[in-house]
Structures are given as structure tokens and as C-alpha cells.
């Protein structure tokens, strides 16, 4: 008996560290959601019960709590979201697709009813607690909600039999730096939430195929034409699911990660393109940053005419393609670009979870940078058509150059001038800032920066200054001068060769006096290289700190100057004009005439078409 209990004790003692190691959560689990929800496909309704535990991980007592009710953005045309995006309002009106969240009951679990204490302002719910929630204390709220599922809204809703549920449940806002990050849902804004655990049970008609965040735990047939699925997710900060009876399912695997693709029947011939793209991304991140920490990634190919495409959620991403593009222009990497971009977010949003409301560049910019690297390494150009090639980074550059300097990258999402400036900055310019940084520091150093940033901030909420601190630490130098200009500033980056001259010395035959003038046309100062070429094949490389507005280099050589180029390797992708980076002594008539001949023929063709009406 004694022996037996001793052995048992020993066994338990041995087990404790093992189980602790196994159970060691990846994140500080601030929230724990238990939700059961029923989908009514006839009424287009969701009926939900939610118990959410919230840990006050701050140092302040919290007299009130904030929750997001995102679907109220689509309640009517008076919502903040629709005011900022009337086009969505017109669509919802045309389709009669308004959707919302109604709170039916709200109480502390096994405690007082708080319905009277709620203040709901469109997409933000504020609840005043009977007594403040003390630091390190946990509160459990029990909420009953009814959602009308929108049609033609943004990111969520239904079309035909396809349902996509993102931001569908009353979701705790984040309390950070002494304030609640509970902002109204704005068309430019994405999301921000605390890490935690989700147990979600959904009841829906039996014939529906479901994709979801988390992992499946159980599936039961309710023998009334419905089934109930239970999913469990750990160390995630959102929970999204989709259901459609017509989804095709394809499975694949990369190392420990299971890949599930839910595709549209008409896209069956593009299944491999999707799977290849996810695997390429998983593999790239595995070697570049770290192995994917979740056991599964679900990729959803959205339905035709749907609104859920091109979005990221923990353990679930939505891609996007079309039946025709594959046949008409096979050279466009349509499903690949979006799949790889959204997968990138699994790291830069899903794991390293910055505040997307206020510092969107940290997820969108870093993800766009990752996307460019993976696409170029895996596929080369993103578009091959008619003998022309377009690289992903050139596409980003195009987006950046359309509005290069209306807002700094570091701007709250809803404070951007417009959607073009928002995407031009947080996606495109931010990606080019990182590509330029990589070129300035070298790829190896940049990889160390990205790895350190990930390791240090995985499963937390880093900020811009945290990223910059990592850069400074890894490089061992203060790089603030760079970020101050390109992240916090709106100055233009533009270096140019202002003038060239090369004259034979009057006293010495065959000896030329050459002058190269470099100019900084933009406000941003970045040290640059200059390459000067002579007609005997000789080249001179110069370095210029760019601090003054211009600098002149002079040479006395037995050769005539041919050309000069500032930043000859095009390291500075932020430079707004690569054409003026170089200057040649000779007029490049062939290039000019070639393009002009193309345009001439284009005009001739337009005129011929016009003449056929006469």
C-alpha cells in the first residue's frame, strides 16, 4: 500500500513538470471565450450564448469594460462605418442586407444583471461594473446575443448558401497603456484583441461544410437536420468560421501543420495553385522566422460575388481568385499573391499582434514585405504578360508613388487622408521602407532583425518603437534617423544626377576633366553610393552622406566620362524617381525612339478605329 502510494506520488511528481511544460501557454491568456451559437439559415440569424472571462492584466482597477459589436456597423446608414463608406451603405440598401448584433442579456456569470449598465454606441459597448475589476482579477460575463447576418457588407455575412462569420460575437476590447482601445469600426480599420482560449460550439444544418479557427474537438448529429461542431483554439486572439454546403475540401501538410483548403467547385482546377502557395509560405517562414506554431491553417476560397476575400484571421485566411483569370491571363499570380499575403499575417498579426487600429503598418507593411520576398523567391515576377514582367515590389512602388506623401506611415488608420493614402502608406511604402532597410543593412542582418522581433514579441502586442529598438539592438547602431524620416515623416526621397561634363584638357591631349554633380531633391537624407563610368571601362565608386543638397565630384583621367548613377543598385526603393538617378553623356535615342514608335503606332491604331465610323 505504502509502496504503491509512494510509487504513485513519485509518478505524479515526475508528471508535474512534464504537464507544466506541455501546458505552458504560448501567450498570456487574457480572455477565455465559451460560445455556443446556432445558425438559422432561413431567418439569416445567429443566436449565441457567450461566457467570456477577462483578466485585468493591467496595473489599474477597471471601473468599466468595453466590448466591440462590429456588426452594428451594418445596422443602418447612420452608422459610423456607413457614414465613412456610403458605397457599402448603398449596396446593403439595394440588397436589403443590413445586419447587426442585439444584446439580449448581459450579466456577470452567477451574478448581477448588467443590462441597465450598458451604453451601446454603435459598434462599441461600454459596461459599468458594480465595482471596479482589480488588477490580476478575472471577471466572467455571460452574454446572450442575436445577430442578423448582413448581406453585401464587408468581410462578414452571407451570399447564397455561403456564410462567413468574422467579428461576429461580442468581443472584449484591449486595455493597453492605461486606456481602452475601443474605437468605432472604420472602413480603413482592422482589428485588435487580446490572446486567449476559445471554445466554440456551432449548430447548423447537417449538410454544411465548416472551416474555422482552432481545432475540431467533436461533431454530433442532433438528429433534427442539424449538427453541432465544437472547436477549441488556444493562444489566438480572434475566432472566425465559415459554412457552405458546396465547399470542396482539399488537404495537404507541411511538417507539423495541416493545410485545409475550402474551395469553390468552379475553382477545382486551381486547388494546387492555392496549396502550393501556402506550402511555399509555410516553408519560407519556417526557415526565415520560425516554424508555424499552430497545428492547422485553413484557407478559404471565397464565393463569387462575396465580400470575405483577402483577409486574415488566426488559423484561417481567405484568398481570392476567379474562374476566368486563370484562363485569360495565366501569368497573373492571382490566388498566390493573396494567399501568401494573408498567410504572412498569421505571423504578423496572428502571432506578433500589434494594434491594427493605430499602427497598421506593423502588420500590413511587414506582411507586404514578407509577401514580396516569398513571391519573388518562389515565382519570380508577379505578372508575366505579353513579354512584360511586373515584380511584386514594382507593384508596391506604383501604389506608393500614387500618393507618396500625404500622410506619414505612422498614422491612426482612420486619420489617413483617404483609402489610397492608407494603403499606399501602410502596405506599399512600409514594405519599401523594409526592402530599403534590408538593402542598406544586408539581408543577413535584416533576417536577424525579423527573427529577433518575432521571438521577442510573439504572442504580445508590440509597437513601432519596439520594432525600431530591435533594429537598433541587432545592428548595434542608432537607426532612428532612418525611421524618423520614413515612418514618422512625409518627406520625399529623391536623389538625382544633376549634371555631367567631360572636357579635354587644353594643355594635355587625351586627358579629360570630368565633373559629376549629385543632387538631393527630396527632404529625406540617406547615404548613397555613386557609380561613375568612363569610356575606357574604368569605374569610380563614391559614397555621399547626402546631408547637403548637392555635391560635386571631379576627375582627371585619360578617359572621357560616360555616365554617372546615384544608388546604382537601386537599393533605395523609396526613391520616387529612378530615372533621374542616372545621367549619360550621350542622348539615348534608341530607347526614346523605341517607346515613341510604340506610341505612334498606338495613336495610328486608335485613329484607324475612329475612321471606321466615318
Amino acid at each position, binding site marked *: 500500500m505504502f509502496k504503491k502510494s509512494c510509487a504513485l506520488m513519485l509518478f505524479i511528481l515526475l508528471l508535474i513538470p512534464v504537464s507544466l511544460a506541455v501546458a505552458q501557454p504560448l501567450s498570456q491568456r487574457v480572455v477565455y471565450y465559451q460560445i455556443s451559437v446556432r445558425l438559422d439559415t432561413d431567418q439569416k440569424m445567429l443566436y449565441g450564448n457567450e461566457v467570456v472571462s477577462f483578466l485585468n492584466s493591467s496595473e489599474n482597477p477597471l471601473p468599466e469594460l468595453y466590448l466591440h459589436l462590429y456588426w452594428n456597423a451594418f445596422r443602418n446608414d447612420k452608422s459610423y462605418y456607413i457614414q465613412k463608406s456610403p458605397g457599402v451603405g448603398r449596396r446593403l440598401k439595394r440588397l436589403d442586407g443590413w445586419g447587426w448584433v442585439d444584446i439580449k442579456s448581459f450579466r456577470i456569470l452567477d451574478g448581477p444583471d448588467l443590462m441597465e449598465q450598458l451604453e451601446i454606441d454603435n459598434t462599441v459597448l461600454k459596461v459599468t461594473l458594480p465595482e471596479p475589476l482589480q488588477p490580476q482579477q478575472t471577471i466572467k460575463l455571460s452574454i446572450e446575443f442575436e445577430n442578423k447576418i448582413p448581406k453585401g457588407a464587408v468581410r462578414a455575412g452571407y451570399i447564397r448558401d455561403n456564410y462567413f462569420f468574422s467579428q461576429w460575437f461580442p468581443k472584449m476590447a484591449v486595455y493597453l497603456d492605461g486606456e481602452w482601445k475601443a474605437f468605432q469600426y472604420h472602413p480603413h480599420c482592422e482589428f485588435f484583441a487580446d490572446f486567449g482560449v476559445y471554445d466554440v460550439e456551432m449548430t447548423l444544418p447537417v449538410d454544411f461544410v465548416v472551416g474555422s479557427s482552432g481545432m475540431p474537438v467533436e461533431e454530433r448529429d442532433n438528429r433534427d437536420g442539424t449538427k453541432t461542431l465544437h472547436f477549441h483554439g488556444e493562444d489566438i486572439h480572434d475566432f472566425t468560421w465559415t459554412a457552405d454546403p458546396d465547399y470542396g475540401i482539399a488537404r495537404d501538410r507541411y511538417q507539423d501543420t495541416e493545410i485545409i483548403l475550402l474551395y469553390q467547385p468552379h475553382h477545382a482546377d486551381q486547388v494546387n495553385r492555392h496549396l502550393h502557395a501556402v506550402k511555399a509560405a509555410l516553408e519560407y517562414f519556417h526557415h526565415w522566422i520560425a516554424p508555424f506554431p499552430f497545428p492547422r491553417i485553413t484557407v478559404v476560397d471565397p464565393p463569387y460575388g462575396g465580400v470575405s476575400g483577402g483577409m486574415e484571421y488566426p488559423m484561417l485566411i481567405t484568398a481570392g481568385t476567379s474562374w476566368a483569370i486563370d484562363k485569360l491571363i495565366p501569368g497573373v499570380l492571382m490566388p498566390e499573391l493573396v494567399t501568401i499575403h494573408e498567410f504572412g499575417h498569421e505571423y504578423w498579426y496572428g502571432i506578433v499582434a500589434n494594434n491594427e487600429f493605430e499602427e497598421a503598418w506593423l502588420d500590413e507593411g511587414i506582411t507586404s514585405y514578407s509577401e514580396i520576398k516569398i513571391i519573388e523567391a518562389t515565382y519570380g515576377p508577379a505578372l508575366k504578360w505579353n513579354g512584360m514582367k511586373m515584380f511584386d515590389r514594382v507593384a508596391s512602388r506604383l501604389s506608393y508613388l500614387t500618393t507618396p506623401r500625404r500622410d506619414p506611415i505612422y498614422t491612426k488608420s482612420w486619420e489617413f487622408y483617404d483609402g489610397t493614402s492608407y494603403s499606399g502608406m501602410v502596405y506599399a511604402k512600409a514594405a519599401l521602407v523594409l526592402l530599403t532597410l534590408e538593402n542598406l543593412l544586408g539581408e543577413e542582418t535584416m533576417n536577424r532583425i525579423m527573427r529577433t522581433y518575432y521571438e521577442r514579441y510573439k504572442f504580445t502586442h508590440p509597437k513601432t518603437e519596439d520594432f525600431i529598438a530591435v533594429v537598433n539592438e541587432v545592428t548595434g547602431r542608432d537607426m532612428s534617423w532612418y525611421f524618423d524620416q520614413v515612418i514618422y515623416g512625409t518627406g520625399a526621397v529623391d536623389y538625382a544626377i544633376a549634371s555631367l561634363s567631360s572636357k579635354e584638357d587644353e594643355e594635355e591631349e587625351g586627358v579629360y576633366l570630368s565633373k559629376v554633380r549629385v543632387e538631393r531633391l527630396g527632404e529625406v537624407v540617406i547615404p548613397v553610393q555613386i557609380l561613375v563610368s568612363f569610356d575606357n571601362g574604368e569605374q569610380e565608386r563614391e559614397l555621399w552622406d547626402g546631408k547637403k543638397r548637392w555635391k560635386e565630384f571631379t576627375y582627371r583621367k585619360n578617359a572621357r566620362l560616360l555616365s554617372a*548613377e546615384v544608388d546604382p543598385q537601386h537599393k533605395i526603393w523609396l526613391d520616387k524617381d529612378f*530615372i533621374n538617378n542616372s545621367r549619360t553623356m550621350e542622348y539615348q535615342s534608341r530607347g526614346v525612339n*523605341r*517607346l*515613341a514608335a510604340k506610341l505612334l503606332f498606338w*495613336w495610328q491604331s486608335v485613329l*484607324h478605329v475612329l*475612321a*471606321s*465610323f466615318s
Partner: protein
Amino acid sequence: MSMWKSFGKGNCQTRRYWQVLLIIFLFNLVVALLLTFPFWNILGESVGYSLAGKEIASELNMKYLTDFFINEQPSLTASYPMPLLLGVGIIYLLLNTFFAGGAIGLFHREERFTLESFFRESGRWFWRFLRLLLISLVFIAVIFLINSLWKGIAGSALEESAHEPLIFWMKIIRYAGIGFFLLFINMVFDYAKITAVVSDERRMIRTALRSFGFVFSHPGRTMGLYYMVAIVGAILLALYLSVSYWVLPATIIVLTLIWQQLYSVARVWVRLLFFSSQMALYKTIVPAKR
């Protein structure tokens, strides 16, 4: 006379009046050159003295094209203001209407070509052709009106459909429909012009309506001939494209330029071939009143 014979006759006439072809071709070239000139200038100033210009000579680098079009956008829009483009378009259309009179007039009279005879015929038919042009624009507007109605109806009917290929093919059918009816109107008004000249008609609305009647009473031969010429045009286009992509070296601009101009000549030739062969057919069917 059959379609084939009309085609043959048309071909002979077009070659006989090669001077007409030359005038129309040169006019097209001159207007296109004028339109290209500002671009050429801006391009020269932008990439002329740069390594980008050197690279563009052998490869159309998207990086430079992006930079050029974005950074030079102010000067490009200043050089090509909308009113100017519209004005050039209208003048071009009017002058081509004028030349069409010369071409059809000469094809009808079979007079020896002189500049005097060409311009006399051009002037003689211009007002009538201009009225026909305006009437044809009404028909073209109707086609686009029907298109947008159809688009709206099909759009709402298919909104709930998940059948992507079906939606795609419906769109293709719609575009093909627009194309077909535009060509049809084009053909009917070719006959209207021919009727105006051959029968010396003065009332153009009546002439246009009669041309519809003419085409409807001889659908096989009129459409057969029209598509025969159209196919010749398509073959020439295919030939032009194949040679430019697979045969011509991109770096030798002179060859590209010559090949482009040969194709431009071919396009004018096809346009004149429409007039001459359709006139031959018309004259076979409708006895001439001279």
C-alpha cells in the same frame, strides 16, 4: 456577280486607286505623329540622358515605365488636354468622312485619279456623308443603350448565381453581341454611302433606311462579303502580331517602324476594300441609273 467576283473587283479597284490609299494613310500618319510629338519630347527630356533610356532600348522595364508615367503625369496631362484630344478626334472623323466621299466617288465613276478629281468627289459627297455619320451615331447610341439595359437585367438575374463560368460566358456573349451589331451598322452605312453616290440620293434618312432594307433582302451576299473582307483584315492583323512578336528584333527600331507602317497601309487598304467590293456587289444587285 457573286461575292467572290465583287471581292475581286474591289481588290482591282483599290489597287488602281492606290493614290487614295496613300492619301488616307499619310493623313493618319501625320495626325498620329502630331499626337506623338509631345510625348516624344517629354520622354526625351525624362529618359533621354539616362541609363533608363539605355535600358528601355532593349527591355521595357516596368520600374522605369512606372516612374515615367507617374512622375511625368503633370506634363503629360498638360500636353494632352481632353478638349484637344476631342477636337483632334472630331476633325479626324470629319476629314475621313470627306476622304470616304472621294474614294467612293472615284470607285463609282472609275475616273482616272487626279488630286482634282479626288477632292471634287470628296467635296461633292461630304454633306451627305456627314448626315449619314450623324444618323449612324444614333444607331450606335441605341446599341450601347440596349447593352446597358441588358447588362442591368442580366446582372440582377445572375446576382444570385454562383455559376461563374456561365456569368463569364454571358459577358462574352454580350461583348460579341455589341461587336456584331457595331459591325452590322458599319456595313449598313457603307451601303448607305454607296447608295447615296450610285443613285445620287439626297435624302439621307431615307437612304439609310433603304440600306437596311437592302441588307435585309440580301443577307447572305452582303454579310458574306463583309465578313470575307473582315477575315482578310483579321489575317493581316494576326500576321502583323506574329511577325512583331516572334520575328522582329526589338532593338532594331527602324524595322519595327517599317513593319508598323506596312500594317497601317494594310488597314487602310482593308477599309477601301470594304467600300470597293461592296460597291461592286451593290451594282450587281441594283441596276445602275446613270
